[in-house]
């Protein structure tokens, strides 16, 4: 018995160590980026990236604010508007759809058909080219703020999460409200939505993160730099080190001033990570409630 106990402990220890290693692998790249954004460019050029900044300095950030402040502020404004409008829009559309689909067949006879209608759209697609032509030439979704969130109205995955939440509401509550003379609309807004709050918050959080991180819509539908999001600015800096100089306020100065190309990328990446870090505790809290993989089909 004692021997078995020791063996059990040893196996657990292996698990603990492997998990520690995996956590480390998840954290190290983040450390590298933060450290690089706090290091001087010349130091990185000579010694390479390191886990901790040897001589921490905020030079890169002050440079970015002084010289690229306008462009970055503009992109932040665009991104934040898209996150706010997009989340509101998508949560509304998805909640309404999910509520209808969560009804019993006796109340709304098309629940199954509509579920299938939504689910089918995730499995088959017409390819990106017809979608692109329709968006840009028929729906007018090009180089404007709406192009950055309108196409993402129905996240079918989120819809199924919410449908599961609505289905968990006990029938007795709804029935007693009906007996009290409540209309469908009153039941929806006063009973069902408050009771499915956890699911709606989960979906809203997923939307906030999805819109903050989105690269697909701005890459396809935006060519005008007025509507660049933070992800696009970061991508342009990554793909072309000289992007920082383009249309820059300091093109004449560029000969004299040493521009921190590498560390500037890392500083913008940190800006893109920071809001996620802030939202993360909330996301974690709702995350486990949100995942119900079994309820996807049907």
């Amino acid at each position, binding site marked *: 018995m004692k021997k078995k106990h020791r063996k059990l402990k040893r196996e657990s220890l292996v698990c603990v160590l492997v998990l520690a290693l995996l956590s480390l692998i998840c954290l190290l790249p983040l450390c590298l980026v933060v450290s690089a954004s706090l290091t001087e460019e010349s130091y990185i050029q000579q010694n*390479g990236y390191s886990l901790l900044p040897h001589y921490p300095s905020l030079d890169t950030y002050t440079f970015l604010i002084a010289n690229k402040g306008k462009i970055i502020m503009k992109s932040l404004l665009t991104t934040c508007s898209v996150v706010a409008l997009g989340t509101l829009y998508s949560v509304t559309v998805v909640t309404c759809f999910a509520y209808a*689909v969560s009804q019993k067949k*006796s109340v709304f006879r098309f629940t199954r058909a509509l579920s299938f209608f939504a689910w089918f759209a995730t499995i088959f697609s017409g390819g990106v080219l017809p979608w692109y032509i329709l968006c840009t030439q028929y729906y007018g979704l090009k180089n404007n703020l709406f192009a950055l969130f309108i196409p993402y109205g129905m996240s079918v995955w989120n819809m199924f999460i919410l449908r599961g939440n609505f289905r968990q509401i006990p029938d007795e509550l709804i029935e007693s409200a009906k007996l009290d003379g409540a209309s469908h609309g009153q039941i929806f807004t006063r009973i069902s939505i408050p009771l499915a709050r956890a699911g709606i918050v989960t979906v809203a959080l997923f939307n906030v993160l999805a819109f903050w991180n989105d690269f697909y819509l701005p890459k396809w539908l935006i060519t005008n730099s007025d509507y660049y999001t933070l992800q696009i600015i970061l991508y342009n800096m990554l793909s072309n080190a000289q992007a920082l100089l383009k249309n820059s306020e300091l093109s004449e100065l560029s000969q004299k001033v040493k521009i921190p190309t590498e560390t500037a990328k890392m500083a913008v990446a940190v800006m893109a990570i920071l809001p996620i870090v802030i939202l993360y505790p909330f996301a974690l809290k709702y995350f486990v409630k949100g995942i119900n993989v079994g309820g996807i089909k049907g």
Partner: protein
Amino acid sequence: MQVKTRETQKALTQKKTGLWKEIQKNWFFYLLPIPGIVVLILFSYIPMAGIYIAFEKYTYQGGLFGSEFVGLDNFRFFFANINNALRATRNTLVINAGSILLGTTLNVTVAIMLGEVLHERYRKATQTIILFPHFLSWIVIGALSETLLANKGGILNQVLQMLGKEPVLWNTSPGYWWAIIIIASIWKGFGYGSIVYYATLTGFDTSLYEAADIDGASRLKKIRYITLPLLKPTIVVLFLLDVGKILNGSLDQIMGLTKLNPLLFETTDTITTFVYRTTTQNGQFGTASAISLYQSLFGCLLVLSANLIARKVDPEYSLF
């Protein structure tokens, strides 16, 4: 019992009354899903009909459904570019098969390991850390990868130099990039995947394990004969979801990691990036439309074959 019969009766009478009456009575439910239906029609179903573009000579004036019909003419360009298309297909298959197979294995392993850790707070802390990459965008991960893969000063080359080996020029060596992309996608996704599996694991009936304990089953035996079979449905469902995501999901991944570096196309050009490049960079809608149709057919084929595999594993969990 009485309630049940009343309900069935109610259902029967409702079937008899016309649809119009039902709409009048429950108009609220017919109104609610309309925005969602409109969005789905505009952005999913009309594009499906738009596949027609592959058979016409697209002009701005003619539009999507009114341009001149040219039959299979567009596919001339496609077959002239067949090598690129095949290369993109191969890369898509290799990268996704690698990420899904290795990823699933790692996810299940980590989930089981999480279950073995008895210290509650340690487990929570681990979950918190490994889930974080799931919420990062591929562009941010592109920045992270630069600190590791930079030719000069990148961590990997620093390690290679410490070991006395020659540094590798990652940005010009396509040979490494299948592995790099697969590792990156596993890095991003394993926290999410393993937590989903762990959530499933904790729902299992503990009496099964207790019975196995009494029979003196070893830990590995318990995993092999209890845990894995019970996890099978979840594995199948997540596998099908992953396959569904293949076609629409990899543009930002490849662009973030490789920044569409032409030197790496040999191993990193996937169908999605191939369509993107032909559409936006050359503006040749004829070629692009043929490739776009190919993309749709390929996606359809993938989902159908994934479904076939799922049905072989467990008929209950196939999609259709």
